[in-house]
């Protein structure tokens, strides 16, 4: 059982990390707690579902479509909502509230368009069933999620380290004002980040709905709660933190179920979160002195 639980924890942790990536990216660069990330995640899932069901596209094409559509939604949110708020230097809670409004709009629009029913991807878009080895079971989707999480993470980390856009991003994350003085196109970077973060959210939406076999308008809300826990655990705005935090939460939940009792799962997960914050007030990877809010 232990080995199977280890696999379960790894895939659940990857699911959380995948969701948290875009979430933490927005916070790290734009300094906004984007409560519409769950809705963008849902948009990605529906976009891919439509692509698969209506246009009968293969799943990789659907992923690309989800990537683009969610990315565009993210871009629209930035242009229409976040950017005007940035221009007038609104305190950081204000954009958060605006994103609540955006989330309500997207969620109810999805319900209007597609109905409230739980839908799923047709069977066979990804290999069904599970691979069995020595009594252990793992599915193709799980392998895909774990692999993709690691790939995205590595790409992002290398990208941030090595490329000029990465360096610019880090400068912006440190201080947007100073970055602007250095001649960095801060607004442009914010746009790109919004696109990429939302696009990643959309891809996460597709993969997680393949994993859970469920697509419904409010599917992003429960993930949002977990995502918040993940990025606090990892240290807000930190890419590695999203991975570590996600895995941490996944392992905490799975092993709480396995060895403590499933009724205590959330209590254990959030209790740990609470404790970690008390010991390390800015999360596992958080900087000692956070950017002044």
């Amino acid at each position, binding site marked *: *059982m232990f080995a*199977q*639980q280890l696999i*379960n*924890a790894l*895939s*659940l942790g990857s*699911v959380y990390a995948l969701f948290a990536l875009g979430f933490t990216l927005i916070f790290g660069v734009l300094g906004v707690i984007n409560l519409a990330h769950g809705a963008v995640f849902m948009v990605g899932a529906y976009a891919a579902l439509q692509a698969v069901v209506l246009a009968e596209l293969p799943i990789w094409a659907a992923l690309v479509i989800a990537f683009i559509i969610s990315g565009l939604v993210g871009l629209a949110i930035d242009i229409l909502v976040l950017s005007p708020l940035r221009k007038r230097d609104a305190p950081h809670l204000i954009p958060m509230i605006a994103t609540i409004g955006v989330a309500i709009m997207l969620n*109810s629009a999805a*319900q209007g368009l597609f*109905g*409230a*029913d*739980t*839908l*799923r991807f*047709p*069977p066979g878009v990804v290999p*069904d*069933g*599970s691979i*069995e080895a020595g*009594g252990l*079971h793992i*599915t193709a989707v799980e392998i895909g999620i774990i692999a993709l999480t690691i790939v995205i993470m590595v790409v992002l980390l290398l990208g941030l380290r090595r490329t000029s856009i990465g360096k610019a991003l880090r400068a912006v994350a440190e201080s947007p004002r100073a970055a602007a003085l250095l001649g960095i196109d801060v607004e442009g970077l914010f746009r790109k980040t919004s696109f990429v973060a939302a696009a990643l959210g959309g891809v996460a939406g597709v993969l*997680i709905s393949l*994993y*859970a*076999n*469920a697509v*419904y*308008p*409010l*599917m992003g*809300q*429960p*993930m949002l709660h977990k995502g918040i826990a993940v990025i606090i655990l990892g240290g807000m705005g930190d890419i590695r933190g999203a991975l570590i935090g996600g895995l941490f939460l996944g392992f905490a*939940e*799975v*092993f709480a*179920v*396995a060895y403590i009792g*499933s*009724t205590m*799962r*959330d209590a254990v997960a959030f209790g740990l979160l609470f404790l970690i914050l008390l010991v390390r007030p800015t999360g596992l990877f958080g900087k000692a002195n956070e950017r002044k809010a």
Partner: protein
Amino acid sequence: MRFMRSAIVALAVTTGAVSSQAAEIKVGVAAALSGLAAQYGAAIRNGFELAADEINAAGGINGDTIKLVVEDEQGRKEEAINVFKKLIFQDKVLVVFGPTLSNSASAAHPIAQASRTPVFGTSNTADGITAVGNYVFRNSVTEADVLPDTLKKIVEKEGVKKVGVLYGNDDVFTKSSYDNFVKALKDQGIAVTTTETFAKGDVDFKAQLTKIKATEPDAIVLSALLAEGGPILVQARQLGINLPIIGGNGINSPKIFELAKGASDNLWVGSPWSVSSDTDVNRNFITAYERKFGSKPDQFAAQAFDALNIVAAALKTVELSGDIAKDRIALRDALPDVTWTGATGPFKFKQAQDRSGKPAGYDADQKPIVSVTKDGVYEIVN
């Protein structure tokens, strides 16, 4: 005012034909059309609309037509209260159906009781719903009524001796049925190997399922709604758990074949309604529903459909005075004696009791059908 009303009534009586076209019986429906419970609310609204259409097409009730006033209560108790007050005091409906969730019902039903308006739950399975008072009715069968039969059947057919239990512990619907499962399991001397829980919105159930699998039960008892029930079936099969799964009302829906395609076999469900129940009424209901809404109905739709028919049957025995307060009381008095054969089979009410054991509202008294899924259909177990 009083004079005016009786004058109108008198006029209506004398000009019979005209009045029968003009008169409308307003019926309130409070359903969760947005929020997390929206998929149940939508099915419920469909069930009512279908029933209203059919009743009106067949000449209405003694010539009067039924007019549905549907309001969204969002699955939240404050909204349910607001909607109930609007329906009862502003729209002056004769009877209120709903709300969708038991939580909201606990908050909203007392308002109907206090204003002497019959209230009829079609999806509220929690204990104590009908303890509020004698104006509270429901045709949603509680698991307490159907589970013993389901368990008996599966013990008889599959020789189940010990089960693992999995339920949603943060939801009234699933928690209530879990409580009833526990009681029925105990009564029938079936051992429980382990009890695991999940929460609404979870995407991963493998940790719990792995643990259950390790305890080697003969079957899994599952109390879940569709959104989680579907994924649970799939993930169980992915983990190589091919045991029978005993479900509650919450997953008694043809949608399970879609949500758990390829993994939906061997799910045992007991309920008065089954999509495979081959009575004329049910067949007609399913056909009409599919024609109107383009999808197969579920239990929530069936119960809503029957509920309006039950009320219509009661109304046929009542002479409406036009005085809403009197008519509400008259309807209440007529309802308990209604018997009806609907999509959910033969139906009658039984009196429920409040906490102190005094008679209160009315619960459904129905026989469950036990069915098991195989190749995308529910097969009735005899």
